[in-house]
């Protein structure tokens, strides 16, 4: 999960990385404690491309700050409105760099990426230099130096970048981060490096050994509405889309495969909902049904599960129990397959449900029902 810029900067500060001494501004703050102007007022949102969407405003005095804050709080970035703003001192610098540490399959672990020209256009520029590390303890300053030798000619700057990169690798490993990206990393007039912006993506699954990650996950759930929260607490993964066929599936790949099939056959998926991480019991599927039943955009629900360790007799029984207590009248289409699927028709017969044999048939049925609704 991605954390906010000011949270990422706090983490970097805690490991000795220089970041601006910014001020947090919450909605309704009458007199923000900003002493020196100008400042960069920055919307704290998780979506990318904030800079290009006007999410950073240079502000020269208290009055302008008020106006800019009002404007940013009212702006949506992607599907997100900022809950807080960060006012960072506007610092003069003479170079803008890009430095990140992330994980990479080919590197078998961590990789350092560096570009001597950072900033908001980084994606359009030449590819950053790449230092594959693998396990974090295999980081070697001399190897990174060799990678950067032709990339960064200023050797004093290069040495600072190398030390910083090592700190970031150690931090990514110690704090279970998928990515720590500093863009721009700037060189101040005195030669020191400072992280003017920072993006950190935590490893969700390290929540048991990092209380910060647990708190972020709890925050994510707190921000969700009641119906979604119940589903998230079951471990489900959910992304809302703009269609009308509510999809309850298992496994990310098949869920996307079903979404694509719906699209291909002329329908529109209402969501990505992977219910496989939850328990395959009545309890496990209940919040998924409640979520889609409660969503007025959803006209029909398609349950598409292909289980190996997930046994289909259990899933079929869970469906039966859920259908019995469900109040919504939205139609449900089933396509269950996998281990013990031979027991499904017998169970489905007891409550009048039909199990489609092919995904295409199930999707066609769902599209038909959605159009009719």
């Amino acid at each position: 999960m991605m954390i906010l810029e000011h949270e990422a900067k706090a983490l970097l500060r805690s490991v000795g990385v220089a970041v601006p001494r910014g001020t947090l501004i919450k909605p309704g703050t009458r007199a923000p404690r900003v002493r020196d102007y100008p400042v960069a007022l920055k919307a704290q949102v998780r979506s990318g491309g904030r800079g290009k969407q006007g999410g950073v405003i240079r502000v020269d005095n208290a009055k302008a700050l008020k106006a800019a804050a009002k404007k940013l709080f009212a702006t949506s970035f992607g599907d997100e409105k900022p809950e807080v703003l960060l006012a960072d001192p506007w610092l003069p610098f003479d170079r803008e760099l890009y430095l990140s540490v992330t994980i990479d399959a080919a590197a078998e672990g961590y990789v350092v990426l560096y570009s001597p020209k950072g900033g908001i256009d980084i994606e359009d520029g030449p590819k950053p230099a790449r230092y594959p590390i693998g396990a974090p303890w295999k980081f070697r300053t001399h190897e990174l130096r060799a990678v950067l030798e032709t990339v960064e000619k200023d050797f004093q700057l290069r040495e600072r970048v190398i030390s910083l990169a090592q700190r970031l690798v150690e931090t990514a490993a110690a704090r279970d981060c998928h990515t720590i990206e500093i863009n721009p990393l700037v060189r101040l007039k005195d030669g020191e490096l400072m992280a003017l912006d920072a993006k950190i993506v935590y490893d969700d699954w390290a929540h048991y050994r990092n209380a910060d990650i647990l708190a972020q996950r709890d925050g994510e759930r707190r921000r969700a509405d009641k119906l979604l929260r119940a589903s998230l607490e079951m471990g489900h993964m959910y992304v809302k889309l703009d269609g009308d066929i509510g999809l309850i599936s298992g496994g990310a790949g098949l869920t996307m495969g079903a979404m694509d099939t719906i699209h291909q056959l002329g329908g529109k998926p209402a969501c990505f909902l992977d219910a496989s991480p939850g328990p395959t019991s009545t309890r496990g599927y209940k919040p998924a049904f409640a979520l889609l039943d409660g969503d007025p955009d959803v006209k029909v629900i398609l349950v598409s599960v292909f289980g190996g360790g997930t046994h289909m007799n259990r899933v079929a029984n869970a469906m039966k129990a859920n259908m019995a207590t469900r109040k919504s009248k939205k139609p449900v289409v089933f396509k269950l397959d996998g281990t013990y699927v031979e027991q499904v028709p017998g169970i489905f017969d007891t409550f009048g449900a039909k199990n489609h044999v092919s995904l295409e048939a199930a999707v066609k049925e769902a599209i038909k029902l959605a159009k009719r609704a």
Partner: protein
Amino acid sequence: MSILLDQSNRVLVMGVTGNYGKFFVTDSGGYGTTVVAGVSPGRGGGDVDGVPVFESAHAACNATSADTAMVFVPPHLVRAAAIEAIEAGCKLVVATADEMPVRDTIEIRAAARANGARLVGPNSPGIISPGKAKMGFMPSFCFMRGPMGVISRSGSLSYEGSKRLTVAGIGQTTVIGIGGDPIKGTTAAEALALFHADPETKAVMYLGEIGGTEEAAVAEYAARKDAKPVAALIVGKTAPPGKKMGHAAALVGSKADSHAAKTKMLAKSGVYVCKGLSDLVPQAHNALAAAS
């Protein structure tokens, strides 16, 4: 032939006394897998369905010459169990668990590399060589022996895809689930190299997703002059950019991660790209036809 797994692998089950471990012993043993030992600290001396239980992988390998490990322990213990099996001498370790911190996978890979071993997974259905052996919970009826190697980033999609092949009469040498995590014990590139070297594998079906860089490796292989024909299905065409689709690696971050970019790149390299699940069997036929 097949890759990585057949009846000659002597399988050790880490976490054998748990529910998954017990089910695996019975289910995969019934399929033909040679399960020789289990490990469960504190419970050594007993047995699970006739398979002896040991206190440690070291003791198990010494007593049974196990060379392959299947790991069924909770996510936060997978690193420990996998590294224990590797250092006890297992050359192939399969971890199906999801919810594993990626740093743990990195550490297992490092241990595997240091010991000349291979990890498959995590967050993967495992591996099956139809008619020979399986390491995982795949529904056996979806698979049959034949000429196609299958590589999949997703578990349920590999079942769906393999069943379609099987129903169409296209059997598989081996189906390997490389997993949905950003760091994989075995990457697509490595799985392709194994299928390339396997004489029985005539063509490869790759089941991929948006996000990540695995697909670049597939395109790179397919572009080789000596490459075996490759067909591929990339799911996630309808996924919005910037959102994680379940799998930690299934996220369109940059433009190269998108469905359009990936399918274009694959097609350009000569891969038979499926237009969707319904197009899987026709493209598999095309790939196999190109092999002869």
